[in-house]
């Protein structure tokens, strides 16, 4: 152990290097070449750290720009449709009585409506719905949307229990002004549907006038 020095791989604080480099019994006996290697060794450490962490940063930024998934409520998705092929999470309550199942080429296809109390979007999902999927309960669907077509879901999540609602769905409902968690439990499934229908009636009524 003839070459004492500081010991952190990531030493970004040059102020601490002073006492560290001078410590040790052989501090004064070091030759110029020795010091060069010490310097180059520290350079090697710093460079490795720098390369690794800038690589990590680059990877993170690159991945963020391509793979972040935004959450949208049905009214948002209809008002401002996302870029086609961009994966988004759609969340809301499953409209009671809206689930239809068909089989295409031996593959089960589920079609159901999701509402946030303001608007409803039809979701199409081929696969097994999760065990906790229920009409009138909250759901999150992962997939892409093109206006005029049903939301093409690749994954449907309803993994929480009956009393729990995904946070993002709760937020969306709160924003839509239909429910505030401070005022108790979410309204029952039936009232969601009537809200959606009333809203729709109002909208059509307004446009008719």
């Amino acid at each position, binding site marked *: 152990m003839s070459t004492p020095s500081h010991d952190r791989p990531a030493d970004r604080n040059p102020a601490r290097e002073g006492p560290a480099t001078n410590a040790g019994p052989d501090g004064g006996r070091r030759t110029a070449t020795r010091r060069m290697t010490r310097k180059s060794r520290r350079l090697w450490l710093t460079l490795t750290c720098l390369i690794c962490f800038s690589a990590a940063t680059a*990877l993170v930024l690159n991945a963020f720009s391509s793979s972040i998934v935004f*959450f949208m409520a049905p009214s948002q998705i209809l008002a401002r449709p996302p870029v086609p092929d961009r994966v988004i999470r759609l969340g809301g309550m499953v409209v009671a009585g809206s689930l239809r199942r068909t089989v295409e080429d031996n593959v089960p296809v589920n079609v159901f409506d999701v509402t946030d109390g303001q608007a409803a979007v039809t979701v199409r999902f081929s696969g097994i719905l999760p065990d906790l999927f229920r009409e009138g309960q909250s759901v999150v669907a992962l997939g892409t949307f093109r206006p005029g077509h049903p939301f093409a879901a690749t994954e449907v999540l309803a993994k929480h229990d009956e009393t729990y609602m995904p946070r993002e769905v709760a937020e969306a409902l709160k924003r839509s002004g239909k429910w505030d968690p401070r005022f108790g439990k979410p309204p029952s499934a039936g009232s969601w549907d009537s809200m959606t229908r009333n809203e729709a009636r109002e909208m059509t009524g307004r446009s008719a006038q």
Partner: protein
Amino acid sequence: MALPGAEEGHYALALACVLALAQGVLPLWGAARRRRTLLELAPALCFAQLAALLLSFACLVISAVRDDFSVENVAANSALSKPLLYKITGVWGNHEGSILLWCLILAICGGAVAWFGRGLPLVLKARVLAILGAVSTGFQLFCLLTSDPFARVWPAPADGQGMNPLLQDPGLAFHPPVLYTGYVGFAVPFAFAVAALIEGRVDAAWGRWVRPWAVTAWCFLTLGIAMGSWWSYYVLGWGGYWFWDPVENASLIPWLTGTALVHSAIVVEKRDALRIWTVLLAIATFSFSLSGTFLVRSGILNSVHAFANDPARGLFILLLLALVIGGSLLLFAWRAPSLVSGGIFAPLSREGGLVLNNILLCALCAVVVTGTMYPPFMQILTGRTLSVGKPFFDATTIPLALPLMAAMAAGVLLPWKRGQMRPLLRRLRPAAALAFLGLIGGLATCTGIIPALCAAFAIWVIAGSVTDLALRLGLGRGHGMLKQRLPHLPRAVWGSAIAHIGAGVTVLGLTGMSQAQHRIVELGIGQSVHQGALDWTLTAIRQEKGPNYRATLADLTVSRNGREIAIMHPSRRDFTAQHQVTTDVAIRTNLLRDLYAALGESHGEGKAARHVLRLHVNPLAPWIWLGGVIMALGGALSLSDRRHRFGAPRKPGGQGAGRIARSPSGTADGTGRDPEGVAS
């Protein structure tokens, strides 16, 4: 004689809290005031606290087993119809019970330090126990004040509400204790780090004392993560093993820093370098464990927003985390500059490899932390809800994991202090050849270049570790050499080689799993479908009755070219008490690939009934968890090495001091820790 119940348990918990407070205060005071009696009190207080907590936990188990529904926790999570095993394991299947288990494991860790650390210097041991006691006090207060597992409910209901059926599984029953032992186990290296900061001294002996504790915690955490991943694979029925959700990431983050800690502690022990860094890693690992368990698992990240189920709980936990993490980091910032640092080293050496391992593991950890914390952060800042998932983590972790694996094989083949490129390349030749074959094989069988690269690097890691063992055993240099060396090869060498092989096996499993095929079909009885070169035929659907559920079973015949190779029975269970349906997956494995079938819903009646099935062929899937078990076994084997027994050299002037005397700082001599200096 009446068995103790909830009130006794509550009392015992309060008693344990007071004892923990005493354990946290008195020895530190004794160390500052140089009172030997107070220092010697620490282990006794530790054992007393452990006994009180054991009693408290036993009381909760007794309440659950005896169906005492006047205890709110039992009423909310148990039911008369629940099988006995799940009545016991259900104790830690909920928030309150799991916090109590957490405290109990922390006390057990303290007890283990007091028991096995008999050779530790008196002051250091007292300080370590005091810090463990202080952490215990905080969390037992949390348990008592905000999440009391013994709270009563009046009037007592006739039957409980029952447990989430998804949790009624033997795999999950034992997953939390193992995982928690991993999390909490890192409290011991943390306590050692803080004690060393208070003492102002970190040396090779410190490294030798910390390492076994770090390795133990690491083994448990590895096993815990593997069990959790296995559970989600065979219980959730989605065919996935890792979903990158915050709860899973919360266990992966301390695992990454813990792995770095296990490696950097070797450098402290062998080369007396990386000392400040190792102290920081020990603090960081426990901090991540704490934030992981408490922020994510108790739903506080959720409750900050829409579901503030109990604001006091959230505030308490944030304060506690700030106190433990902030306090230790402040202490670090204050004391670390005064720690004299050790040697610097050549890039091409064993310690150079270990440093590279640390840098890459920390970069990986930073990436996972970013991916986990960015969505909630952005929600607070901008109000937009977003999420990052598998695509993000695939794109960021794989490019960092590949160089890590590349360094793994080279690192184990390098000597300490100074290595040379030419001998290293010569030693790596067999591994490179095998990895190249793996790459070709991967390109031929996998879709895409990344899985092929992963497979090649996994083989590279395994081959590198085997080469290391072969070189050390002198294989190929005659039978006599092997006979001479085999009994003397330290178990730590075997352990690290086996752990590295385990890592390679896991990566091979992950690679294989990335090539999994799955298909969802809807079949009538007697119909069949072709999937993954196999014919799957649905032969029958039956109904069965379990202890607290009704099951629908399918008979699924799998055949290849008309030859029957398996009959599988995927089923669905309807738990009547909770109105909940779970999927019971059927898995048939031959260790090289899993056949995996899940039964979905049924539509139609009688002969026209059709049943949804999810069919997977998962190559190498079992290797993922097998690798985890091998890694933990490797860690356990290296723990059993004579040189790494818990505690310290028995004789301060013995071999230990001889090793430390070489350290340049000159302060790190074993006798400096002599308790006699304190007593006078």
